[in-house]
């Protein structure tokens, strides 16, 4: 049997040299007269080990990393001779960082060959669809409702309830839209699943289509993700050729087909109604609600819009049952969350775990502190609209309500770590700058307020009438929070105010007494 290696084709691995490593293995094998089977899998999400190469052995896969192209000749010799090598991490499944996770949505990601439908099926793929077909539309929705799954795009709305609304709407044409616009800094879960397990996206959208009576789907992927676009287009063609998309899918009475649409670099198009405008070919300007997309969505038809991770979780729920999913989690946050640990962190990557893990565990234990080796000062949770948390709030459990209770949000589950060199006034300025850059322009508090916000923070940084401008900033944030149509203008105050409240010293403000007393 040939020696079998797994080398990720995930953009995150490719960006740190995975293609060069794969080429180096081919060259080294040729020079030694051996044949290698190289599978280009997705990433397991242990990014500090990427490019992570896995060797298939009788006892399972063994991981090496991070591998550079220069390491390959000696590494291949060691592999072929069965000798140890300094880059050996150990049996993949025993790596503590992976072992500690509960991989439901990401069970196959990094394991399977994303181009192979057979591999997908061997690893449990399409079992969810099989059960869905046996259950029928109403029972599918009931199952999703019972699972407690809430939207992973940020707002946390119960997925099954949304589906029920669309199912109840009468129309000749309904749509399923998968939102893979993933614009939040610090997030890459959508990207990983699209690249590493693309068939689960197709299966999830298909089940949703059956449940609500929709026959067409659009997968909206941001243009910053060319690898994901390519992986999904290939998978869609394969699924279509194998009877999993098109008429009478998988031999059933249902029709469902889908296509990829590529965004054009506008953050606001991740907002569901702006996304609809964009798909329809217009400027990505947010629509007022009502009507809800569930009633009048794409081309005025009832439409399900869900985040990629929400939809990618559905096949697991159908295959294993609602109760199995609901058993994980805390409070009203059920199941698991693929948390993305990023920024200045030693062990960054995708960590899927039941809700309830604390921020401190994620940053200090799992993330291992900063990459720079300096103290962690702040972490931003939930993307550019999420709050900055100081160490004092590290006991906050990962849970929708707990984060809301601390004036924050979990958003799409991204955590960006900063060390003590960060200047929080600059971060507040950036939040306003980003809002100004990406505002769709529909409401004044967002469009004008954000530009005023940048100027005001600049004045505070310069020490120009600081006390007065701090009041102006608070007022601006208040106006944006309550006068904006969508969360871009409405939530930009979160990073700004959290930076100001928790890190006042960076704004030239004397720390409050409680801080000084510690």
């Amino acid at each position, binding site marked *: 049997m040939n020696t079998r290696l797994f080398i990720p084709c995930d*953009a*995150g691995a*490719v*960006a*740190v040299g995975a293609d060069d490593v794969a080429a180096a293995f081919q060259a080294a094998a040729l020079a030694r007269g051996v044949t290698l089977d190289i599978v280009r899998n997705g990433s397991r999400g242990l*990014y*500090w080990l*990427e490019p992570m190469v896995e060797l298939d052995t009788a006892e399972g896969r063994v991981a090496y990393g991070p591998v550079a192209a220069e390491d390959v000749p000696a590494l291949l010799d060691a592999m072929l001779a069965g000798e140890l090598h300094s880059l050996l991490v150990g049996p993949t499944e025993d790596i503590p960082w992976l072992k500690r996770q509960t991989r439901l949505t990401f069970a196959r990601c990094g394991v399977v060959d994303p181009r192979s439908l057979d591999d997908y099926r061997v690893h449990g793929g399409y079992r969810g669809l099989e059960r869905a077909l046996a259950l029928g539309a109403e029972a599918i929705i009931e199952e999703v409702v019972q699972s407690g799954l809430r939207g992973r795009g940020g707002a946390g709305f119960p997925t099954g309830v949304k589906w029920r609304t669309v199912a109840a709407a009468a129309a000749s044409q309904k749509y399923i839209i998968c939102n893979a616009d*993933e*614009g*939040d*800094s*610090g*997030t*890459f879960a*959508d*990207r990983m699943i699209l690249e590493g397990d693309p068939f689960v996206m197709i299966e999830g959208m298909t089940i949703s289509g059956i449940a609500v009576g929709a026959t067409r789907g659009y997968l909206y992927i941001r*243009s*910053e*993700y*060319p*690898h994901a676009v390519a992986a999904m287009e290939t998978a869609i063609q394969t699924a279509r050729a194998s009877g999993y998309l098109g008429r009478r899918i998988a031999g059933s009475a249902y029709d469902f087909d889908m296509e990829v*649409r*590529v*965004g*054009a*670099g*506008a*953050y606001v198009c991740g907002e569901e109604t702006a996304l609809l405008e*964009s*798909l*329809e*070919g*217009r*400027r*990505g*300007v947010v629509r007022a609600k009502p009507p809800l997309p569930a009633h009048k969505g794409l*081309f005025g038809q009832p439409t399900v819009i869900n985040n990629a991770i929400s939809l990618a979780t559905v096949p697991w729920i159908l295959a294993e049952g609602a109760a199995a999913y609901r058993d994980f989690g805390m409070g009203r946050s059920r199941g698991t969350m693929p948390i*993305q*640990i*990023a*920024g*200045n*962190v030693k062990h*960054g*990557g*995708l960590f899927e775990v039941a809700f309830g893990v604390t921020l401190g565990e994620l940053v200090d234990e799992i993330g291992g502190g900063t*990459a720079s080796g300096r103290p962690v000062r702040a972490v*931003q949770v939930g993307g*550019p609209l999420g709050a900055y948390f100081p160490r004092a709030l590290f006991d906050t459990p990962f849970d929708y309500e707990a984060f809301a209770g601390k004036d924050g949000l979990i958003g799409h589950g*991204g955590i*960006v*770590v*900063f*060390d003590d060199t*960060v200047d929080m006034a600059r*971060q507040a300025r*950036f939040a306003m700058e*980003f809002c100004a850059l*990406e505002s769709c322009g529909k409401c004044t508090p967002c469009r004008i307020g954000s530009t005023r916000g940048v100027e005001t923070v600049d004045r505070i940084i310069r020490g120009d009438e600081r006390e007065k401008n701090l009041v102006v900033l608070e007022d601006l944030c208040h106006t944006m929070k309550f006068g904006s149509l969508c969360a871009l203008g409405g939530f930009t105050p979160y990073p700004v105010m959290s930076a100001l409240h928790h890190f006042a010293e960076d704004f030239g403000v004397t720390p409050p007494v409680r801080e000084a007393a510690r």
Partner: protein
Amino acid sequence: MNSYEPWSAARAAEIIAANVGCEGPALPILHAIQAAFGFVPEAVEPMIADALNLSRAEVHGVVTFYHDFRRKPAGRHVLKLCRAEACQSMGGERLAARAEAALGISLGETTADGRVTLEPIYCLGLCATAPSAMLDGRVVARLDEARLDRLVAEAQR
């Protein structure tokens, strides 16, 4: 390096015709036009307007709304540097300033010799291996000064 076709109204008409049949064809058309010519020439706007039964102003509005669509040709190489938070936490801003200094231009500009366009980008989803960049569609992460300098040199070739 990016190689693009010279502007041709006939070719543009072909691209429009190939995409006009789909639902919501405007973005697919604009992407295809930019892929062919490297930017969205003003001359194409009335053609798209005609094909989609829109006013020219509407088409212009769409082109200008999206950061991706260029109104003039880019340099032979396009280097995009991530400016979002995770990359900031790993010194991305310093690297952006270094690239600007090396090329003698600001983000959003093209060098006078037409070789390099430097653009900001807001997250490439490579945030666990920050700072990140994209050179002509190729992703690069774990940038430091040495790697950035190599990338800039490559772009200048």
